[in-house]
């Protein structure tokens, strides 16, 4: 299956390990990753906070470029990017006024788009079964952290999972052999880009999430969202300093754990890119 792939600015830089692990597991799972030619930033939360047109037009350009690859499916692993591209494609197909504006701006006709736009969990959900598991994640106690953008608001996006108690990651992690702990913060918001503009609020939100994970008995948080992962992992040192806590909880992308269970070596999964080193934990469980 050929998949049009939009890394976005995050996966190109601050969330490199998601890009590395995504590509590493795709091949063996039968996914042919085709990077979208000359992609641009989707505008993130800034475009939809400042300009109605640009919040549509920036991701729409990527959708148009992706259509030239001949892929039937499209993914933007960063959930914020995913949301923008999903909505842009919908407007491109269903909102003639917006499409007309885009054509006026670019000075050329653009076609409708019929690729299926999938989020990062959706891409792997049906590919992970017991047959791919070579090294089960035995003994690893995890909580799954979906964040908000992948599951909320419901009925808006093409992906169905329960917005309050989603199950897709849980199912993947159980298949990989990890011990999945139920907890109430699966979709609690970490603050996302407020980490740049209202840091105190983000630190508190992320502290609460880490505390809940710890209290639930988790050894690691499994993340699917780049912003959530960054707020819990990269900013864990800031949180410890601010609240005089001593959290040492790795926040690992689910794609990295899929790779590990498939028997792919750790250095090909970007584990060294994480800030809270997961290796001592994984070694103690003989998973490395």
């Amino acid at each position, binding site marked *: 299956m050929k998949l049009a792939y939009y890394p976005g600015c995050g996966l*190109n830089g601050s969330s490199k390990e998601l890009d590395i692990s995504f590509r590493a597991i795709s091949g063996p799972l039968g996914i042919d990753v085709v990077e979208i030619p000359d992609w641009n930033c989707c505008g993130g939360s800034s475009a939809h906070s400042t300009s109605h047109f640009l919040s549509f037009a920036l991701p729409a350009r990527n959708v148009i470029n992706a259509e030239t690859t001949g892929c039937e499916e499209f993914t933007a692993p960063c959930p914020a990017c995913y949301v923008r591209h999903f909505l842009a494609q919908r407007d491109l197909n269903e909102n003639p006024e917006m499409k007309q504006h885009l054509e006026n701006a*670019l000075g050329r006709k653009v076609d409708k788009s019929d690729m299926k736009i999938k989020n990062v969990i959706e891409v792997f959900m049906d590919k992970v079964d017991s047959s791919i598991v070579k090294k089960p994640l035995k003994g690893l106690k995890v909580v799954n952290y979906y964040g908000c953008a992948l599951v909320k608001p419901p009925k808006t996006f093409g992906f169905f999972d329960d917005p309050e108690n989603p199950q897709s990651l849980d199912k993947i992690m159980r298949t990989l052999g990890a011990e999945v702990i139920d907890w109430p913060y699966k979709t609690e918001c970490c603050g*996302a880009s*407020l980490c740049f503009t*209202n840091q105190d609020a983000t630190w508190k939100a992320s502290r609460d999430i880490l505390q809940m994970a710890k209290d639930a008995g988790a050894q690691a948080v499994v993340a699917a969202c780049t912003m959530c992962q960054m707020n819990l992992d990269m900013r864990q040192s800031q949180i410890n300093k601010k609240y005089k806590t001593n959290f040492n909880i790795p926040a690992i992308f689910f794609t990295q754990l899929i790779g590990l269970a498939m028997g792919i070596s750790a250095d090909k999964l970007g584990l060294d890119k994480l800030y809270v080193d997961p290796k001592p934990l994984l070694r103690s469980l003989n998973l490395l």
Partner: protein
Amino acid sequence: MSKMNVTEIMDRNKEFLRELREESGQDPGQCFQCMKCTGGCPFQFTMDYPPSQIMRMLQDGLVDEVLKSFTVQTCATCATCTTRCPRNIDIAKLMDTLRVIAYHRGIVGKGKNMHVFHTTFMNSVKNHGRLYEVGLALGLNLGTGNLLQDTDLGLPMFLRGKLSILPHNIKGRDEIKKLYDYAKKIGE
């Protein structure tokens, strides 16, 4: 808040409320103040008015107060409110629309950090086609005066190969410029 004449305020802001309904596709008049949005909002603790109060203020036409509020700026768009609203109001979408309107009117209010962040971010994309993270961090810290924010993260990011010192320029920058010019032309 001091004494006010609700009828007069409503009259004055009727047109704005009509536009807000049209642009967001949402009608704050549908809110019956059950406060589920406020109960579930993960950032209510940092807001000046809880989301349910914003809805009530819109019903009463207190437009200026809403546009100047910190709530509109610090809403994280997590959509927990939207998910739970028994009246099916997309409250997150309303907040988004209000934020765009405030930005276009040049209302910074208590959201100076957000204003600087969004402006720097959008300029970066305009110039390069992609976000230039070092430029964003510098612009943000200079613009807000929080010069040391996140400087502790620079080295760890660099050591992990996550910071690119130079911006990445895409080939289609002329197309990006066309999109920005057009947005300016139509005022959106």
